[in-house]
């Protein structure tokens, strides 16, 4: 008799939960373990395993996003219950252990708009870990792809041009190549200067996840909006987001001496102006300088951005198409620089 009652009680509990809210919960123990589960669903990050429906957490976008073959990106942060991120005075954001940054990549005209891949950046006690997942053909779950994979896709870029590429889902190490600071993995996008919390999120929700949400004051301009900032400001935002994760003194391209952070002196030789190639190989394109002021056609920074040849192209990872709009912005920026006197 007791057992029957227990069963009835359980059924009632389920019913009271309602079919639409089978309260999904992030498996926080799994998140904080060292595990690399073969299926993305194991983390319980989504409702109905829909990557655009976070089980918990808060969405965000970026003023200036990294170019990734014209993918639309859907981003959110899952922060453990009762814990909060905090914004430091220098604009970096400290996330508590147990945080997951979830980023799904896809195109509106591929797979009916469903993502092709979802990348997790997980803050564990041992540091940040990057895990790439590729969505299965039936779209119901995604599978771990530690070694990365190329996925054939055909899509149209905003200017209407059709692209057929073998899109590269990065391997775990490639995640780190970009997300590396002094050899440790760190988030790239979430910095106060570039970070926009979901505008639909209530103040209550913001305060639930951030100690000081008012400190999230984006300084960088919206890239494609000419009214949002000068050409130079938008060009520098572009370089910060697309290049500076490697091109900084503690990043993967530290040895190049080319440093392109928002905070670097944009007149310095280390910003590329009059800087001769170092270890560029074919990337120099027969040119003398990364940036030749007033002369984008003789600036090999442009040459490398406009190439898809792996021996030439920059960034080295994460791009199989040319970002025409980004290259045009940087061309305009260089063209408007006064020509060097020498």
């Amino acid at each position, binding site marked *: 008799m007791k057992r029957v009652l227990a069963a009835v009680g359980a059924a009632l509990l389920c019913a009271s939960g309602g079919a639409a809210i089978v309260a999904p919960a992030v498996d926080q123990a799994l998140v904080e373990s060292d595990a690399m589960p073969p299926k993305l669903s194991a983390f319980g990050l989504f409702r109905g395993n829909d990557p655009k429906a976070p089980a918990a957490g808060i969405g965000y976008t970026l003023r200036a996003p990294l170019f990734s073959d014209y993918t639309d990106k859907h981003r959110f942060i899952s922060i453990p219950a009762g814990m909060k991120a905090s914004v430091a005075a220098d604009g970096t954001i400290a996330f508590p252990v147990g945080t997951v940054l979830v980023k799904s990549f896809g195109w509106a005209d591929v797979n009916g708009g469903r993502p092709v891949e979802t990348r997790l950046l997980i803050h564990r006690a041992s540091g940040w870990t990057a895990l790439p997942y590729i969505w299965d053909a039936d779209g119901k779950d995604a599978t771990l792809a530690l070694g990365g994979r190329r996925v054939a896709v055909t899509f149209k870029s905003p200017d209407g041009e059709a692209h057929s590429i073998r899109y590269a889902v990065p391997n775990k*190490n490639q995640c780190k*190549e970009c997300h590396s600071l002094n*050899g440790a993995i760190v988030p790239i996008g979430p910095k106060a200067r570039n970070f926009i919390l979901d505008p639909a999120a209530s103040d209550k929700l913001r305060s639930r996840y951030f100690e000081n949400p008012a400190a999230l004051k984006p300084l960088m301009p919206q890239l494609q909006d000419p009214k949002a900032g000068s050409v130079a400001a938008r060009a520098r935002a572009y370089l910060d987001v697309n290049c500076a994760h490697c091109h900084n003194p503690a990043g993967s391209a530290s040895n190049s001496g080319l440093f392109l952070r928002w905070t670097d002196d944009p007149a310095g*030789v280390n910003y590329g102006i009059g800087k001769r190639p*170092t270890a560029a190989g074919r990337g*120099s394109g*027969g040119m003398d300088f990364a940036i030749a002021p007033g002369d984008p056609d003789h600036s090999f920074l442009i040459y490398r951005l406009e190439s898809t040849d*792996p021996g030439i192209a920059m960034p080295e990872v994460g791009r199989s198409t040319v970002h025409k709009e980004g290259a045009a912005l940087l061309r305009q920026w260089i063209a408007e620089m006064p020509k060097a006197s020498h």
Partner: protein
Amino acid sequence: MRFHGLRHHAATLCIVAALAASPAAAKVISVNATTPDANEKLQEALILAEPGDTVQLGAGVWKLTDGLSLDVANVTVRGAGAGEGGSILDFTGQQGAGEGLLVTSDDVLLTEFAVLNTKGDGIKSKGADRIVYHKLRVEWTAGPKETNGAYGIYPVESSDVLIDSVYVRGASDAGIYVGQSKNIVVRESIATENVAGIEIENSYDADVHDNIATKNTGGILVFDLPSLPMQGGHNVRVFDNVVNDNSTPNFAPKGNIVASVPTGTGVLVMANRHVEIFDNVFDNNGTANVMIVGYRYEHKDPKYQPLPRQIVVRGNQHGKAGYAPKFPGGDMIAAAMGGSIPPVLWDGAGNAVVLDPVGVLSLNLPDVKTPQSEAKPAPADLSKGTPPAALPAIRLPAAMEAKVR
């Protein structure tokens, strides 16, 4: 020549210590070239390896489309050989990544495999201390072409680097390039048909010995360049090498510093402090067997020192040299000197001591800001200076030497 040196005794003693330090759970992860998705499987193996493990590459030709990377410390990547029938990583169809293999972890041994036809660099290691490159081949199989990748073997920003018994051919910059590193040994290797055979750049404390640098544009280069995080290159010994017939026309993409290396250069020192060039065998280097120059390009780096200083040239054998000098105006100077210039060429900047009993031609351009067109070439006697105290031999951690025994 000491192609097989006296390192055996010290190395033998160290093997025991190295074995004792190995984790008990070390395992071998074998990967097969013919596995479907071999590229992905090999990359997964490199990711899942744990410290102490060996990733064993099967014999055969691996057709790879994407660059590989290793970020786990104390891992060995071992193939079945670098020659025909060995483990051949063929990147002819490469679609992504700036190199064939990238290592970013410490205490790694790479041995017994080949990397062919990468679009960018061959094997790069960055911030990878105590790395050992042993019995490897990096080659662009069509020979010298401007479309070849830049560097063959490319350690950078590392302490303790050993490159031993490798073969590199066809790099459009340097075959073996060590940049911004400390405590380096490059030995018993062959660099041929590259723009620069072996290059030590912006680095401290290096021994380059018992190598063969032949048929490159320039055989062995010791450079220091401005505006880089690590500069002030010094303490480099180049000895017991064969540096001959470096006659391949320069095929580096313009703009790169090595594009300025004249065809027919044996050893070239640019900027740097305290470089010793001794007991090498030079022959058939049409521009010069040894060239010592300042950095003569415009730069905006107040910390940079563009002059070569304390350069010592002694005890070398000089065969034919200087009969086809490929620097601007070189042919006219050679004609005026009876058909060839002396085997040692100095631009007149900085200081050097040349004790070899051969002629030295100075261009008498002590100020690096003076254009080369104002050269006043004349024989110079550099034998009277006092050489600095001889540099000590480079000693690497014993565990590194044990790995190549």
